[in-house]
């Protein structure tokens, strides 16, 4: 499974080369365009700060008090049987509900367990592989005034469950 890690490390450099060469070929003022787009990155990161800070403080309190360990300890007997680390459960539970809550949970796990630990890698994969179902539904249906969502919520939540299980199995196969 080692080649998968090699591919991982080549994806971003390859994209950079393709974009820069193609941009030059199409006569895009590459550097000016880069700067223009980069400015959006500054405002995006800054606007995320209050959301992240509030959530991270709250999760840190929960962890420092020992409540997180108690919660995880409660679940581990059942989950260790399935080879699932119980530490990942709070992240899996918040993933479909709130983007910043789950991002903060993932941050907390990466920080406490280490980014290169099994749980750290699993948290990274889980956070990156699905989007926040409730947010997507609220924004898109809200924007166009759809009152009856039909099966959308059910489909979205089942898809999240599939994504979470996929992350577990794939990380187990590659990093486990």
């Amino acid at each position, binding site marked *: 499974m080692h080649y998968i*890690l090699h591919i*991982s490390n080549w994806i971003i450099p390859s*994209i*950079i080369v393709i*974009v820069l060469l193609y*941009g030059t070929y*199409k006569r895009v003022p*590459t550097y000016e365009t*880069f700067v223009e*787009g*980069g400015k959006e*990155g*500054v405002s*995006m*990161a800054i606007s*995320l*700060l209050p959301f*992240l*800070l509030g959530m*991270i*403080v*709250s*999760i*840190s*309190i*929960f962890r420092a*008090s*020992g409540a997180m360990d108690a919660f995880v300890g409660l679940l581990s007997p059942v989950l260790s049987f399935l080879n699932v680390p119980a530490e990942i459960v709070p992240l899996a539970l*918040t993933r479909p509900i*709130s983007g910043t809550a789950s991002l903060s949970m*993932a*941050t907390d796990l*990466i*920080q406490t367990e*280490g*980014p290169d630990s099994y749980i750290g*890698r699993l948290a990274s*994969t889980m956070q*990156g*592989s*699905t*989007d926040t179902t*409730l947010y*997507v539904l609220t*924004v*898109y*249906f809200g924007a166009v*005034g759809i*009152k009856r*969502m*039909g*099966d*959308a919520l059910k*489909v979205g939540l*089942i*898809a*999240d469950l599939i*994504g979470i299980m*996929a992350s577990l199995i794939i990380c187990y196969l*590659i990093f486990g």
Partner: protein
Amino acid sequence: MVNIIWVALAVIGIIYALFNGTIEEVNKVIFTSAEEAVALTITLISVLVFWLGLMKIAEKAGLLLKLTALFKPIFTRIFPEIPPNSTAMGYILSNFSANLFGLGNAATPFGIKAMHEMKKLNNNQEEASRSMITFLALNTSSVTIVPSTIIAIRMQYDSNAPTEIVMTTILATIVSSIGALLVDRYFYYRRVR
């Protein structure tokens, strides 16, 4: 919902600390974690500026449009009720390509326009159409090539290989997207039967 999670975590934590005798740790962490969040934002700026800058070049060079053309044949099958050359299809594809590149901010406006067009195709009813549900299923499973935010967080905590999770993320995202489409089909055929 977010409000409940946020309050519950803090309040349960503090009450638990009272019984567990960990109130000192809690006091300390309130300020250190806030500081961490700011440090994390700085790392986030570095990654997002670089990535969004690069993606702006991709957008201007027309790479996004190229990608759109590439995915069109697949999407006409995923969305059988949407005419292949309609504006609705155009916006759906733009939304998908923007998501693929991790341009969440650019993807949302395309997505909203796609929803407007799909509502028109559905005679402006207030009920979600088949295509809308498929579209949202695809969006909630979010196909992304580069999870830039997570890479930034891994950098912040000194990962030896911040990008080693790119491939696992792509694999997981493909599985969840295919899963989402299958579940969506299943519910659709159950409705029409």
